[in-house]
């Protein structure tokens, strides 16, 4: 039952004025909000309205209002990207003018190139070589110290520029291993013998005379008499612990019978020369990079 008392009676417990309502003995105290709070609230509304006018806000049928400032998140990104490009411009220009062999003499530029290369690697190379550049069966690991074509900066750059077995590129890295099994060049027993000989080079199997002879006749021309391979032909070293296409007997038999020939695209035309230099610097920095060989008129005499 609602009753009404004259306004202004003081509540005993709190010393607060009542508003005069009473419902079943419960009275309402008059504790008004401060007036400035109300003005703050109004100010917030005004701010919000202004904000929704100058910035994109109100949803319409197909898009939203654009806002009088013309601000967009894409525009902001564009500005950020331009600013980033501007800060990089000097480095990029310096890299464009520099031969890659000279990069180690400029540690600052080298660091910038490695960082830029790491970013480009994430976009262009991880599909085959993996995020950690560790490769997988058939795709080379770029961290180790074993290189098919060479691991100095210039050689890596050349590999990147022209690719490996890239159709249509005249100077691409080209190496072909015959299909000894599927083309009938060797019998299954001969392949088995030669595979055992190959594994014996790294102590993984016992050698055999037939295999050794077959190797000398068919394989040594590219892989060398001792099986140490040749970077000139991109022929793998068969005496080490690293096996691009697997190091078990079955793997070797399969590779001799019908070799797997990987292809790496030539990046000329796909990426700009500076990015390719950066990628070469990054791959070189992964722990297996080799020093640029001193320019010699004759081929190196040491094995």
């Amino acid at each position, binding site marked *: 039952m609602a009753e009404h008392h004259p*306004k202004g009676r003081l509540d005993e417990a709190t*010393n607060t004025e009542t*508003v005069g*309502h009473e419902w079943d003995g419960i009275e309402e105290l008059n504790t008004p*909000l401060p*007036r400035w*709070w109300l003005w703050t609230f109004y100010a917030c509304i005004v701010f919000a309205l202004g904000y929704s006018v100058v910035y994109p806000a109100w949803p319409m049928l197909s898009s939203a209002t654009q806002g009088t400032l013309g601000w967009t998140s894409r525009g902001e990104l564009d500005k950020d990207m331009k600013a980033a490009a501007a800060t990089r411009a000097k480095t990029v220009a310096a890299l464009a003018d520099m031969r890659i062999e000279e990069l180690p003499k400029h540690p600052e530029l080298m660091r910038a190139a490695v960082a830029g290369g790491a970013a480009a690697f994430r976009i262009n190379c991880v599909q085959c070589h993996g995020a*950690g550049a560790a490769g997988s069966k058939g795709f080379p690991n770029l961290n180790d*110290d074993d290189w098919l074509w060479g691991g100095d900066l210039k050689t890596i750059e050349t590999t990147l520029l022209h690719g490996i077995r890239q159709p249509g590129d005249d100077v691409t890295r080209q190496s072909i291993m015959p299909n000894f099994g599927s083309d009938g060049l060797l019998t299954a027993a001969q392949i088995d013998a030669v595979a055992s000989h190959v594994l014996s080079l790294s102590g993984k199997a016992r050698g055999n005379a037939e295999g050794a002879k077959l190797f000398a006749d068919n394989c040594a021309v590219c892989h060398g008499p001792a099986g140490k391979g040749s970077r000139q032909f991109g022929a793998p070293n068969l005496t080490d*612990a690293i096996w691009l296409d697997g190091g078990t007997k079955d793997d070797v038999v399969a590779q001799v019978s019908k070799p797997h020939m990987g292809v790496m695209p030539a990046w000329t035309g796909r990426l700009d020369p500076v990015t390719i230099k950066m990628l070469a610097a990054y791959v070189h920095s992964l722990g297996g990079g080799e020093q640029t060989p001193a320019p010699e008129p004759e081929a190196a005499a040491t094995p």
Partner: protein
Amino acid sequence: MNKPPDMTQLSLYAKREPVFNRRIDGKFRRIKWAIMALCLAVYWVTPWLRWDRGPYAPTQAVLIDLAHRRFYMFGIEIWPHEFYFVAGLLIMAGIGLFLVTSAVGRAWCGYACPQTVWTDLFQHVDRLIDGDRNARMRLYKAPWGPAKIARRLVKWAIYLAISLATGGAWIYYFADAPTLWTAFWSGTADPVAYATVATLTATTFVLGGFMREQVCIYMCPWPRIQTAMTDEKSLTVTYKDFRGEPRASLKKSQKAPDVFGDCIDCNQCVAVCPTGIDIRQGPQVGCITCALCIDACDRVMQDIGRPRGLIDYATLDDAEREKAGQPPTRHLKLIWRPRTLAYLAVWAGIGLALLFALGTRVHTGLTVAKDRNPPYILLSDGSVRGAYTLRLRNMEGRPRRMEIAIVGLPGAVMWTDDSARADAARTLTRTIPADATLPLRVYVVAPAPGLATTAAQDFAFRVTAEGEARETALSEVTFDTPQEAIP
């Protein structure tokens, strides 16, 4: 049926009642002066104190160097990874508030809170320009005219000057003060500096000049927390109603001293109150316990020849004891109670722990991040390589040579980005620049025969400053190997 209340008489919103507090002198006012002077002096002088740390570190005694991630406080330098010292100080500040509240009530609110200190300062400006309570009330009610406008402009100009000095001083804690001072006034400082000064000037102007007690009553959470922390044993400003009531004018109470209490309803306690409350209504959220009403009332009691302390610092318990004719609790006993002691123990415990940590900390550090992709690299000779990024810390103000060593992992050697595998060794030495970290990418190679076929082996890197055996740090990591047997 009763008549409905006249809703037009009620408002949902209350206009701020302006406070015109009268000037008062007394014991507590003098304490308040002293604390105010101390707080303002500390705030304005601290950034200008110098401290010699040698050629590699800033000379500012207290500096929060956000750009270089360093915090300097006199002889102490804190790095970001030691932020727990700052966290510990903040926790101590929080528990310190509890401790102070438990021991002496809302002393923080009454004397040391910046809102109180600056409000006090601004109220003195009011008094200086517009006169004391009555003059200010007259001026408030007077219609706007040239004289009033002129007075207001002068007063607000002084408000603004104080606000600018307040907001302006803040930035000098974050950069070398003399350098920033020159840059600031020549217009070449960072825009952040100007924005910070503008923001803090505006907040000081509004909160100190106009909001004042509204901040304490409506905006600050601390009074709410304090209501939960005070009880009948908490020291607070208490009006002894048993002694004062019923109140009457001096004339009336002199005629009938047996009927009326000591309170002569002179309203002095209300007149001097900086938050405009009437303490005689009992403890309330608006009372910041600044005790100016005690000063005012003591004066009146002296004038009319009654004992002081009608309004006094007292616990509600003590008021009850006094009412019953018992002597008040001794001050020491007020503080010597479990709650206060518990806060003190926690507060001091954290403080001692921080001091211990500070005294025993090593100025050499090492963090190691292992390459996880790939976890290991098989090399052509059959050995296995792991890659690690070491971060060597030299927390002293001079360059130091440090030796990095492999602990465990028999046969393993390491080399770095800037050296070749041919130079690999169990240890290597680097010079770390003063007060800096040095990142170092390290390759660790372990020979095949030495490796077990387990997936991972534990080992550690240890860094030791040359010639300082105590200055050493160890970081444990794993060395991953191929899971299949290595030939």
